[in-house]
């Protein structure tokens, strides 16, 4: 009966298109906004690769990426007192021109050059130039993306606060956003330039990777100020935050889609009223109540589905805009198959729920009355 349903909804072409448009906008919003959540998820997942096998220590209750925490040398001493640790790497972050919703223009990361591998990974190759050498001062290394964006190369200078740093190297593309978009500086240099005596994060590398969880617990036991997170723990927390963003973005889109669902209901109520007689005929010639119900539901589901498919297309287009507006290029919004499927199923659900009342009304029509309805 699908062909019949299609023919029926196309009898009122304009009305059907307008109704589908209501669904389209809602599903478009769900998909476009949801793509941000997926983009954040991808970014966070790549960030987590950085911390594999490490313990990330931050001040308790500091922001997720250690933006606001303040760690001191005393904290370092506490950690040093715990056994089984191979390396302790303090890290300072400096964010240039923080813009709400978009993040900083760029981020400088202060790290001891001899321990740089713990941030950029052991296998990272240089695109051009070299890494910062031990004891070297006044130089920076750029991530691939940031070097491209500012069109700078080895030999140029980079200004942090008031000081100029010579660019000695560019790291090859890693696809890990935290590396590709950062500027790596000697830890002491960045502390001086930013006039800080505290820093936001300490990486702790255990002697034996199997001890990671235990050492993290020991750190937290040793100091009330410190929050020691393993990759597993960070993944869990990040997952929670991404899920919250997912729910939030879905909720916004769902409200819009719900309005579209009301439109479907309205359209189907009108269609049933207009076609009373016809429904009476269907019943007179032997259609059961269930058939009439299914017929109307198929029609409303079809309208919603057309809207849903259009919405996914709109969402994909929208996700490109979203990428350029939010996250300052750090977040690449992605429409995952799961997200598209969610949009489509939600559209279908709206069609069925919105169509149910009119369909039920149609199925209960008394054929004798409906047949003689003028």
């Amino acid at each position, binding site marked *: 009966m699908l062909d019949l349903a299609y023919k029926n909804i196309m009898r009122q072409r304009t009305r059907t298109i307008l109704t589908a448009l209501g669904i389209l906008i809602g599903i478009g919003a769900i998909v476009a906004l949801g793509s941000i959540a997926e983009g954040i998820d991808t970014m966070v997942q790549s960030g987590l690769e950085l911390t594999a096998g490490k313990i990330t220590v931050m001040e308790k209750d500091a922001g997720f990426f250690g933006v606001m925490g303040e760690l001191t040398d005393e904290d370092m001493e506490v950690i040093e007192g715990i056994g089984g640790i191979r390396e302790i790497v303090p890290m300072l972050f400096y964010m240039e021109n923080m813009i709400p919703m978009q993040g900083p223009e760029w981020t400088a990361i202060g790290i001891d050059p001899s321990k740089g591998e713990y941030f950029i990974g052991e296998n990272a190759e240089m695109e051009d130039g070299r890494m910062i050498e031990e004891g070297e001062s006044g130089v920076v290394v750029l991530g691939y993306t940031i070097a491209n964006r500012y069109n700078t190369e080895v030999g140029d200078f980079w200004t942090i606060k008031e000081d100029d740093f010579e660019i000695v190297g560019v790291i090859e593309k890693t696809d890990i956003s935290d590396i590709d978009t950062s500027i790596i500086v000697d830890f002491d240099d960045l502390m001086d330039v930013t006039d800080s005596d505290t820093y936001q994060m300490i990486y702790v590398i255990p002697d034996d990777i199997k001890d990671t969880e235990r050492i993290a617990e020991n750190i937290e036991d040793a100091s009330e100020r410190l929050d020691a997170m393993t990759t597993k723990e960070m993944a869990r927390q990040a997952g929670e935050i991404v899920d919250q963003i997912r729910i939030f973005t879905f909720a916004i889109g769902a409200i819009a889609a719900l309005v579209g669902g009301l439109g479907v209901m309205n359209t189907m109520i009108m269609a049933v009223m207009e076609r009373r*007689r016809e429904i009476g005929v269907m019943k007179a010639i032997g259609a059961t109540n269930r058939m009439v119900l299914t017929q109307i539901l198929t029609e409303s589901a079809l309208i919603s589905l057309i809207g849903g498919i259009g919405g996914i297309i709109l969402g994909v287009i929208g996700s490109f805009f979203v990428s350029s507006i939010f996250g300052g290029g750090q977040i690449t919004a992605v429409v995952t198959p799961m997200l598209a499927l969610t949009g489509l199923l939600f559209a279908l659900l709206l069609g069925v729920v919105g169509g149910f009342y009119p369909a039920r009304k149609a199925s209960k029509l008394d054929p004798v009355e409906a*047949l003689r309805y003028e």
Partner: protein
Amino acid sequence: MTKNIIEAMNINKIFNLGMENELHILKDMNLEIDRGSFIAIVGPSGSGKTTLLDILGCLLKPTSGEVLIDGVITNELNDNELAHIRRDKIGFVFQQYNLISSQTALENVELPMRIAGVHRKDSRRRAEKLLRTVGLGERMYHRPPHLSGGEQQRVAIARSLANRPRIIMGDEPTGNLDSKTGKDILDLLKRLNKEENYTIIVVTHDLRIKKYAKRIINLRDGRII
């Protein structure tokens, strides 16, 4: 096989039962209709003709009494089972034709077969054959608004025959047609009755019916006279 295609025993139909505007439309009516007969139900407006036809056609349940269609007692049947009786045993033809205007003549005739779940290929073939039988072989792909009244009524008759019913019921089938076209429709019904042994029951004001029907049932105030 029972001798009578339809038996109605002691049927009463009361609308708005128990209310101030209670209407006693059919009163203790008894009726037997032979297989293959051509029956005309006549009477002034308000005499209960249409209500009787609705009850015999399983569109309406009597308030009391029993109706047997082709040996099946219909009183105890639910909506679904009644729909199946209408689908399989009865074909309807209405004064207003009641075709679905967005569908071609062919699709209209196919509709009861699609409702019955007949395979698409078979329903198409039968619909084509039926439209040729009623003389519309050339207009199968026209939609009702592009057909004349007489042609629309022929489509409706073809549709009523789709599932090979036992009974064709017509509610004023000539009521909207001019006299010549009306006669053609009555001729067609007569031919179906004679050649294919369909039981025909029509409610009508058309006086010419006397020449066609084997039996005239006269109603007055809800009773057969």
